[in-house]
């Protein structure tokens, strides 16, 4: 007997009322896409349950993929048998033998009320079968090493042993689209990840200032995006040629305000991309008080230029928490590569930590940035990053 499917549990989604159908459908689709390297694996649904039929594939790599799909609360390797006491007993024995455990507990649940034995009775029947047919195992109902779950449903009985935690959250795509301001640092990929966790489909925008920022910095952003794609669907990256506008800001505006004004320009351009792409919000890695540009006053000044919602998933996090997540999602090592990005060049000696809206508006009114903003928007290069976007650049060598 072999594990033949993986049982998928969706926690929070079950609370979503009338929308539940679309949530579950999105989860099923997302999961099926993720499993496309496993041609025989099929994602199926019946009566409030979702499972992956392995059809001969090894379970471990598929479990690893499932663990990264948002909307899955937990999962278990399962055996499916007919609603037959003998078959159930055998399968439970198999599950126990495979588990690395000394103590166990049987938790039967009879959903199909036509089944002749009740839940408690099944606990005893299966439990005593396990004790009789094994050596060295004991029952522990309080803190067992493994809990053998027997779920008797109308269509079949499912036997599972261990519960594996899923990524939680909601299926990517169910919460609409947001445009992530992606710099290449530690924060913005984490912000993107957390937005995705709440079901957001991302697009990303990156401000590129050659020759001040290099090809390596641009590649870094694409590599980070690729890591995020691992948690959802393909992501469009909009690369904005920012050099001219940035130079103009630093030439025309006082040093102390240049940083704030540059950020306002970024928001303006981002909003324009949102309009073009039908995106309803921005997502940033901003965090309260972390650096000078992220004081309350600074956010107030920058936010003035857009009335789009700005999602700031990191707003109340400690830096250490953000770093922990970035390590977990494998973006940390890329983020710390030491390439200049558009926020680290032209750092003024003493940026205003408490910029004022009225002052900034007066300053901006002195110079017409319009043409350069238009030019930047017109020059945007859009790149699709997909799970499969392997570099074909070196195909003739590798």
């Amino acid at each position: 007997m072999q594990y033949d499917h993986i049982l998928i549990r969706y926690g929070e989604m079950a609370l979503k009322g009338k929308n539940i159908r679309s949530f579950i459908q999105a989860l099923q689709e997302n999961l099926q896409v993720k499993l496309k390297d496993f041609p025989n694996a099929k994602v199926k649904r019946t009566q409030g349950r979702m499972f992956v039929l392995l059809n001969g594939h090894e379970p471990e790599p598929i479990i690893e993929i499932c663990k990264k799909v948002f909307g899955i609360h937990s999962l278990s390797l399962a055996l499916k048998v007919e609603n037959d006491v003998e078959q159930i007993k055998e399968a439970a024995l198999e599950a126990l033998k495979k588990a690395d455990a000394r103590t166990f507990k049987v938790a039967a649940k009879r959903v199909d009320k036509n089944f002749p034995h009740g839940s408690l009775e099944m606990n005893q029947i299966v439990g005593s079968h396990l004790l009789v047919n094994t050596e060295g195992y004991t029952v522990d109902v309080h803190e067992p090493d493994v809990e053998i779950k027997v779920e008797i449903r109308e269509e079949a009985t499912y036997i599972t042993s261990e519960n594996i935690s899923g990524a939680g959250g909601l299926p990517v795509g169910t919460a609409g689209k947001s445009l992530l301001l992606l710099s290449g640092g530690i924060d913005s990929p984490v912000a993107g990840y957390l937005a995705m966790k709440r079901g957001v489909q991302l697009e990303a925008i990156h401000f590129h200032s050659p020759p001040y920022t290099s090809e390596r910095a641009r590649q870094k952003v694409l590599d980070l995006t690729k890591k995020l794609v691992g948690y959802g669907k393909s992501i469009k990256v909009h690369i904005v040629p920012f050099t001219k506008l940035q130079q103009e800001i630093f030439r025309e505006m006082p040093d102390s305000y240049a940083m704030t004004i540059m950020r306002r320009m970024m928001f303006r351009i981002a909003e324009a991309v949102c309009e073009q792409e039908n995106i309803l919000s921005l997502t940033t890695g901003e965090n309260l008080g972390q650096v000078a540009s992220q004081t309350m006053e600074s956010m107030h000044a920058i936010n003035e230029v857009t009335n789009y919602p700005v999602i700031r998933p990191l707003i109340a996090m400690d830096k250490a928490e953000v770093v922990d997540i970035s390590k977990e999602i494998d973006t940390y090592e890329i983020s710390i590569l030491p390439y200049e990005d558009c926020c680290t060049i032209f750092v003024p000696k003493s940026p205003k930590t408490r910029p004022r809206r009225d002052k900034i508006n007066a300053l901006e009114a002195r110079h017409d940035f319009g043409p350069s903003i238009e030019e930047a928007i017109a020059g945007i290069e859009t790149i699709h990053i997909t799970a499969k976007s392997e570099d074909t650049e070196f195909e003739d060598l590798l």
Partner: protein
Amino acid sequence: MIYLDNSATTIPDPSVVESYQKASEKFFANPSSVHQLGGATEKLLQTAKQQAASFLQVDANEIIFTSGGTEGNNIAIKGIALEHQNRGKHIITTAVEHPSVDEACQSLETLGFEVTVLPVDEKGLVDVRDVKEAIREDTILVSIMHVNNELGTIQPIEKIGKLLSNYPKLYFHVDAVQSLGKVPLDIQKAQIDLCSFSGHKIHGLKGTGILFVRKQVSLFPLFHGGGQENGLRSGTENVAGGVSMVRALRLIKEKQQNQTNHLQAMHDYLWNELESIEGVQINSPHNGAPHILNLSVPGIKPEVIIHMLGEKEIYISTKSACSSKEKDESKVLAACGLPREITISGLRISLSYNNTQEEMERFVASLKEAIHQFKEVLR
């Protein structure tokens, strides 16, 4: 020519040589250089690592390009020993390892380390229970090869890995030079911390190889300098070498997927034919790797057979090439407890996916003839 010495080295694949040449010419820059050429070369190096990682089911930053198996084994063994000697100075290995593991461990004995050398059975197999018994409070490293280079014996790496996972303080190194592309090895399932591979055993070039170093495993580097290869192997990266290694890896993995049956069929054919020749004893285990077959013809000096076959352009070897310079006895066969007449007359046939059934037939006929001739002379 019938080349049956593929465990010593393989014939480089022309496309691997081409990849090396092209990469050398076009991506000559130092990957650490800040300019665009450096950037492009670094990107090539990174892409090569990513692809290697996906073939081996590991992470790109866990890939270190080395000069081959010997270097990988030395970086791993000495690196763990020197880095973690404060935790303990005990190392476990087996009696049938490649000299680069063997000698590296022995060299550490001169620095005050203790080495337990596990015994093997008559087929060269390590017993997992022996591994367990050998583990001590101060054990920091267990180094066991996957496929034995002389016999083709496949060690129970997954079972050993599972056992070792109960001992979080020690590291598990596997020399997988002989198994790459021939015998499946799941680095994750076997919970391996360090794993060595070589390019020239898979139709790549000499001087190329990969060492897998699991994240969070720290090593004392053998080379200090500019901190290349995660600080484990300073010196300007061998970009073309790494690139050609990945090309070779791609090709061998494709063959492993599609042609394992072909290799096994040749192996089975040889087994049946050789077994029926009078005076031939097969030393390899029946369930060993599909590309290695070790046999002895007691009473005939193996060199004689090698030279007789060599005249017909058929190339096989005595024991392993790396220890062929030692006198007479095969250390591996001796470790299996085989009698001296067997251990001094070992011959190794090692196959590649590129060999053909017809070659097997011609080899068997020639071997029979050689043995026959020799016996004629003696009579």
